[in-house]
């Protein structure tokens, strides 16, 4: 049972449904990232959504990471870290949700005293490990050991990823010095004093010094630099592995090696790297990561500005590769991350038009993780969709339902019914309306919560919230489908039924408006041992209609009619801002889109024609050599090794690499890119198909940068 908290201790007054779920012991916390499940440290991270900057209060000390913004401009979204100054030992384990609620309450009270158009809203993120917390953070200072290059760089490439092998030979310039100017390990072992609020920053001279100390033993180098730590969950010892996601991506984006013979990066293109905490890849919810991601972007922008300032230059061309994401979200450019990314890109482009953030479109085309339903899909006043949870899923599963922005939800409710078996919970419903207990005090978004219980134990949470005050979302969270030690609850695996219903008087969906559903990803691409298993959607009318079996012909990708549950619209929810460069993947030998490569949304108009909606890919890049040789090569963790990665994560850095080379040579950023991929000859050549094809491949095609083999 979810215990009622005192008003000032209710985290749901200040934060969203994911925070409530992940931070509350009776809800999803035992199944969260190990560092959270055990009860984390007292150092938190968060985003503030609203004008101004978060400030210290008697209950909370605030740290702003290196932020980039033009003078006299205010940011709409600000990442920050905070802790309780009263706490004698922030390392002690705390009861999460209530502590966080008290601190946020105090910050909010202060912020509300200032005149502002909207009062701020917070999104609490994953905490910082005590070992990563910098005791003496020198806000706004330059890292002392940074050594300027002899000549002004022509461009900068930023890479945000995991497990970055920053000492790898591929990143040396022709003088044998590293081209990595700055590299921030956000979950690194903190030094006493630093120019980052947490983690460890390595700058060029430090990396060169490490390479001198350990000229022939890179693994020992990383151990010595404390860039690997098996006892710190957020850092881990992934650099001891043969390869990491980050090694592959950083190599493709910025490495020079015999693998990339035709597109070398010259010495005057500098690299700025940020290594995210492992939590980011581990956690399967759509929460907890934005602060780290957004501070990573700010850090790259800020350090790039410092480099330019050293040469008394305006901002330099900058291309950032960010091969990460999650799958559920608004997909309308109005999520916190989308707003923040758009803001950063727009503001920097005022000074330097060659500013890009390149992201993968995602790998969920065949995963049945997205559904789209119009008024025609209602049976009277009911819309029924099935959600299949696999057995032995050891992480929480999440479904988000987004109502049209303009819809008045009065009378709408969502009912969740468990698979029909003994011991299953009774159907649980939630009204799509504000709970006045929670929303009466102007504490953020209107919202409501219900728990799904079996014999008094919570196995799930339903929530309805008007996200960022502008669009209603119903979110369902369910605990794992397997018992875990000392946890006597699990969710039944099998087919759950989600019913959206409304009263006869409720507003109906307008023509062209849809109810959208997305599932969060629940797999483990970086082998972090999450043991998650991906759930998927089923439409009862057409249980087989999805893209896991190609339609009509074994070689055909585009159906005559796109079903409700399909890969069109199953895109990376982080890369949805209009100015982000989204990259999809294709197979080099066949010139076809890769089977898994995500696609922008398409929908049928009443006249039967098809149009696209929402974020679309702009460029296709190689993700597979051929059907029987999936993936492409890049470097491994240590010098001289290579590794293969399959997925659009590897498509984005190809594009980023080509773009930054163009920027450095003063060419248009897409110089050398081809037009969109041809429609495969096996597809029907009609307008419907062409709309689908464009949603898969975008309008440009990147040449391969990795040697085939």
């Amino acid at each position, binding site marked *: 049972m979810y215990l009622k908290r005192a008003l000032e201790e209710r985290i749901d007054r200040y934060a969203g449904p994911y925070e409530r779920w992940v931070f509350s012991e009776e809800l999803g916390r035992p199944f969260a990232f190990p560092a959270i499940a055990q009860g984390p440290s007292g150092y938190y991270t968060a985003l503030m959504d609203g004008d101004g900057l978060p400030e210290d209060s008697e209950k909370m000390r605030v740290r702003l990471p290196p932020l980039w913004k033009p003078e006299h401009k205010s940011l709409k979204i600000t990442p920050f870290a905070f802790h309780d100054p009263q706490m004698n030992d922030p390392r002690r384990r705390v009861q999460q949700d209530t502590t966080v609620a008290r601190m946020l309450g105090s910050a909010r009270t202060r912020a509300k005293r200032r005149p502002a158009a909207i009062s701020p809203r917070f999104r609490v993120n994953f905490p910082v490990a005590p070992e990563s917390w910098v005791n003496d953070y020198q806000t706004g200072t330059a890292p002392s050991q940074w050594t300027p290059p002899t000549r002004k760089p022509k461009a900068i490439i930023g890479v945000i990823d995991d497990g970055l092998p920053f000492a790898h030979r591929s990143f040396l310039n022709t003088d044998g010095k590293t081209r990595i100017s700055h590299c921030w390990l956000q979950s690194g072992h903190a030094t006493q004093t630093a120019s980052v609020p947490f983690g460890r920053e390595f700058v060029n001279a430090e990396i060169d010094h490490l390479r001198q100390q350990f000229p022939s*033993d890179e*693994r*020992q180098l990383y*151990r010595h630099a404390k860039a690997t730590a*098996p*006892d710190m969950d957020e850092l*881990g*010892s992934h650099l*001891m*592995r043969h390869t990491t996601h980050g090694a592959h991506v950083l190599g493709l984006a910025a490495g020079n090696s015999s693998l990339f013979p035709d597109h070398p990066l010259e010495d005057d293109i500098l690299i700025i790297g940020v290594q995210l905490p492992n939590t980011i890849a581990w956690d399967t919810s759509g929460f907890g990561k934005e602060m780290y991601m957004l501070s990573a972007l700010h850090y790259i922008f800020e350090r790039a500005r410092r480099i330019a300032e050293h040469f008394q230059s305006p901002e330099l061309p900058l291309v950032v590769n960010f091969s990460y994401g999650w799958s559920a979200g608004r997909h309308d450019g109005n999520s916190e991350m989308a707003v923040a990314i758009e803001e950063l890109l727009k503001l920097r482009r005022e000074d330097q038009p060659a500013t890009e953030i390149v992201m993968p479109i995602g790998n969920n085309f065949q995963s049945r993780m997205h559904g789209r339903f119009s008024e025609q899909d209602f049976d009277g006043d009911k819309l029924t969709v099935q959600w299949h949870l696999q057995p032995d899923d050891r992480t929480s599963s999440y479904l988000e339902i987004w109502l049209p922005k303009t819809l008045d939800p009065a009378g709408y409710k969502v009912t969740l019914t468990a698979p029909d078996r003994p011991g299953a919970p009774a159907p649980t419903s939630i009204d799509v309306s504000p709970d006045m207990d929670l929303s009466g005090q102007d504490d953020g978004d209107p919202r409501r919560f219900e728990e799904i219980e079996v014999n008094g134990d919570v196995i799930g949470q339903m929530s309805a919230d008007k996200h960022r005050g502008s669009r209603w979302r119903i979110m369902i969270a369910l605990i794992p489908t397997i018992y875990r030690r000392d946890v006597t609850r699990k969710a039944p695996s099998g087919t759950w039924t989600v019913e959206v219903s409304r009263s006869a008087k409720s507003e109906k969906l307008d023509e062209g408006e849809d109810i959208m559903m997305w599932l969060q990803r629940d797999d483990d691409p970086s082998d972090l041992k999450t043991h998650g298993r991906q759930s998927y959607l089923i439409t009862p009318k057409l249980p087989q209609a999805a893209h896991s079996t190609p339609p009509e012909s074994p070689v055909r990708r585009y159906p005559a009619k796109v079903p409700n549950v399909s890969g069109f619209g199953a895109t990376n929810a982080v890369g949805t801002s209009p100015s982000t460069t989204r990259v999809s993947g294709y197979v080099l030998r066949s010139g076809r889109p890769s089977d898994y490569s995500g696609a922008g949304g398409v929908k049928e108009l009443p006249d039967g024609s098809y149009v696209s909606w929402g974020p679309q890919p702009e460029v296709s890049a190689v993700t597979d050599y051929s059907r029987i040789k999936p993936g492409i090569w890049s470097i491994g963790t240590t010098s001289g090794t290579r590794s293969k990665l399959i997925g659009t994560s590897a498509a984005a850095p190809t594009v980023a690499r080509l773009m930054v080379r163009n920027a450095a040579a003063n060419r248009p950023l897409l110089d050398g890119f081809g037009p969109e991929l041809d429609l495969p000859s096996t597809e029907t050549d009609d307008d419907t198909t062409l709309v689908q094809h464009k949603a898969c491949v975008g309008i440009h095609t990147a040449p391969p940068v990795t040697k085939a083999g």
Partner: protein
Amino acid sequence: MAQYGGIGGIGGIGGIGGIGGIGGMTGIGGFLGAQDPGGYSAVTTHGLQTTAEGLLHLTMPGVATAGTPLPFDDTANNDRWATWVRGSLYVSEFLSRVSYEAKDTNGTKSIALSFENHDAVELVLPSDALLAEQCSHVRDYADLRGDRGAEIVSQLGFPTEYFAMILGMHAAQHGKTIELITATQVMAAHVAMIAKHALAVRRPDQIDGRILPMIPTPGHGSFPSAHATEAYAVLTVLEALATSWDGFNDLENRIAMLRGLAERIAVNRTVAGVHYPIDSWAGAVLGTAIGKVILNIAGHTGVPVEELRYEPQNQDFSDFDFTQNGSTMGVHICGQFQTSAAPHFSWLWGKALSETQKV
């Protein structure tokens, strides 16, 4: 296949394996049966007999003519002997010089190994508390099982192929070098078993059920690691041999890789879940000493044997720490000695030296 260490031998059919390096043989198995023809098949035996019957009528009667003697007690005969016979000679030459004492000094238990009555290596028994602490390292290393599975399984026996890869070796050109590697491994394995027997340390999977090893836990004690002992002994011998060969243009790279390989073979056993890092420390100490002893009795001068004592502490193992930080991590140098050449190892060393390829 590989867990049946000790009874080796594809030997019997000349030319196929027999000497070391064919996966699956550990302990003394490396030499057993090598070049031992055993018996012929029944058909061949029968055929030989009927052929004898058919041929003898072609010969003349009378006494046989006397032959010449072979050299007496002379290694000049060694090339005549089957490999397994030389194996016996190496074992007896080496082990007749080894002795050990299991000591209990005011509650500190240790084994002291000596060679021709020179103190060589003393290994102090780790405490039960230390073993429990070390289990967390073993669990952490399990993360690398996905990366290293093929190495771990193919290194269950003597990992000679891995050394051969680095030195560009071929059976046709390096027969005696391979025999030297095998001899070194066999000596190291024997000495390690003596130390393991005396110290009798439980394997990590008996202390911590979460380790769940990916290979069978061997039927001997954990400390020191025989794989680490053998790998460091081979590294020591091959480093001296490859240097004496004066045959590579890139010797420095190859020696760095030999060292990296010795470390990796040792650490792979921790990844597999059958050894603590301190087992690798003890094995590296013991193996280095054994390697130098072998160089001494092979007549390779100028490599004194350091007398080492290892008191285990809760450290992870890496070659860097072993070579750079050993003195602060429990390895103490207590003296050094040299010992005189012995005939069979000297013979083998000389043959291996002549296998340089002079690249």
